[in-house]
Structures are given as C-alpha cells and as structure tokens.
C-alpha cells in the first residue's frame, strides 16, 4: 500500500465530521492486486460462482423448511407475548434463503422480520399478525416458492399487516 496522502479538513460549521477531521487518500492493496493483469472473465466468474452456489441449494432449502417448522411450533405454543426467538429464527432463515431466488418466500420472511422489529420497538405486540405471517410462509413454501397470483395476494395481505403495525 502506498503512503497515504493526508489532508486536514478546514474548520467550518457544516454538518458531518466536524472540525479537525482528516481525510486520507488511500490506494488499498485490493485495488493494487486487482489492477494486475490476468484473472477471469466476468462470464466465467458468474458461471463458476453460480455452479458452486447451486451445490448448496438442497441443504439450504432444508434449513429454510426447518426454520419455518420452528416458527410454526413457536406459534403453536403461543405468539401473544413478545418473544425475541421469533426474530432470531426468522432472520436466520433469511440469511440462508437470501442466497437463492426464493421470490415470495424471501419477501414474506422479510416482512415477518420487519413486523417483529416494529412490534418490539413500539411495544405493540400482535400475535395474530405473527400467526398470519407464519401461515403465509408455509403456504408459499408448499407451493415451491413460485410467484403466482396467490403468492402476490398473500404478500399484499402481509404488507397491509405491516403497514398497520407501523401506523
């Protein structure tokens, strides 16, 4: 990495970093190494990465299935009181599902995370909204995560619940 050039930001009243901040011009080792000749074409990279990623898909979908089952079990026990475990399970599911095109499943999972976050922040917990979300996740999963008029309708309903929680 080359020696960075440092400049001191002059005093002023503008918002931001404030008086006395320094700005350093840096050329990272990543930039220097990527500038060397060689490497792979973008087309090759996309093909290689997609192939490698696809080898994980079956395991990933099993994990998603297990997460939805866990959410159903929690709802079955009771969803009428704030429970952080819902958010942890739902966000864990998103972490895995987010590597593949799971269409409406990802959107429904994201909606559930957002709902749980909004309810926990506001202190206004609504167990019915959680139950509807989990049921929607199951229906979408059983339908193969396909985008259909039914899944669009389900997502529209979840959005209405979310909007209501935000209001």
């Amino acid at each position: 990495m080359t020696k960075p050039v440092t400049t001191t930001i002059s005093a002023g009243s503008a918002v931001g970093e404030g008086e006395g901040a320094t700005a350093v011009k840096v050329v990272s080792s990543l930039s220097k190494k990527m500038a060397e000749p060689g490497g792979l074409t973008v087309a090759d990279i996309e093909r290689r990465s997609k192939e490698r990623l696809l080898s994980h898909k079956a395991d990933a979908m099993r994990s998603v299935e297990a997460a939805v089952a866990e959410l159903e079990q929690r709802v079955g026990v009771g969803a009428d009181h704030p429970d952080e475990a819902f958010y942890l399970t739902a966000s864990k599911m998103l972490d895995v599902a987010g590597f593949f095109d799971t269409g409406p499943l990802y959107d429904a999972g994201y909606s559930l995370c957002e709902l749980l976050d909004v309810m926990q922040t506001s202190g206004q917990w609504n167990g019915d909204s959680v139950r509807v979300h989990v049921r929607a996740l199951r229906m979408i999963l059983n339908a193969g995560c396909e985008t259909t008029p039914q899944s669009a309708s389900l997502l529209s309903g979840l959005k209405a619940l979310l909007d209501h929680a935000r209001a």
Partner: protein
Amino acid sequence: MNKDDRVNLEHSSVLLIDDNQQALDMLGSVVQGFGVREQIKLTSATAAVKLLRERSVDLIIIDCADPEMDSYAFTRWLRRETPAPMKYTPVIMVTGHASQSKVREGRDCGVSFVVVKPITPNVLLKRVVWLAMDGREFIECPTYVGPDRRVRNFGPPMGEKGRRAGDLSAHIGIAKEANMEQADIDALLKPQKVQL
C-alpha cells in the same frame, strides 16, 4: 461490467466472517468462484480480531449478528483500534434484515459497502470491483472513522462553507470539466485588437 471484462482476484486474500456456518460456506463458494485463492472463513468476529492481530487481508466480507461482537462492532474496532494500513481494509457488510436500531449504526460504523440480501454472485462481484476503484477519501474524526460516506461529491450544501481545501463554493458545485491551463485563462483576459 461487460461479460468479457477480466477481474483478477487471484492474489487477493479475503476474510469471510459469518456466524451462520451454512451461510458462511455458501459465501465461501461464491468467493471461490471469483477466483480467490486465499480465503479465510471464520464464524465469529472475535476470532477475526485475533487473526487480524497477526496478519492483514485485502478484503473483509462480514455478516455477523453475534451479540458478543457483531458486524458493526467489528468494523468499528477495525477502523478505530488497528493501525494503518489495516484500518483502511475494505469491508463489505452483508445483511438479511437490518433492525431499525441498526440502520443508523450501519451508516456510522465505517463499512465500505452494505449489500442487502437476496444477493447474487453478480451483485457481490460488482461491489468488489466498485471497491477496487473506490476513490473516496478515508475520514478520521472523533465521531466517525471510515470511507467518506458521501459517495457522490456534489460540493457543500447550499449556504454552507465547504470544509475541505478542494471544496468549491456551493453555488458553483463540483467541476464537470478539467481545469483550464493558465495560458488559456490569460489569453481570455488579454486585451486584443478588434478588426472593424
């Protein structure tokens, strides 16, 4: 990026941190597909702290919600507690859902880029290439350490005096063309004979 463009990540070392082993393996496969020969995979940010005390890496990709040290705390540590040039290491934060309390933290912790899932290899590659060409300055001050959060420089806000030596007046804005040569400027100002 065209399909025929070449991207060389063969010689770059990439540190991947994800507290979800399955997601870490998938991220590792994507990065392997990029042609990266040296990737280090860790399931906790605290393990990454130990590693970075011993050696440097060229790029860090992190998705960690571990309450002991999450992505935000790790990036703050990297930016504030490590010496240069390690503190300048590009950091891409990958996230599924970011809770409201974390949105501002994400902006202020000093990450180079936030990539929101769902991610595809193509999106991640674009961000890595963008970072390699990143011309932003690195800002250090009591309240923030990290890449300049202003990705586009439109100059200081209207009515405000710019704080950087190169800031132009807000009424002029950022230069769109190269500076004129002094000789050209002199020529414009030089009195000339007018033919009648």
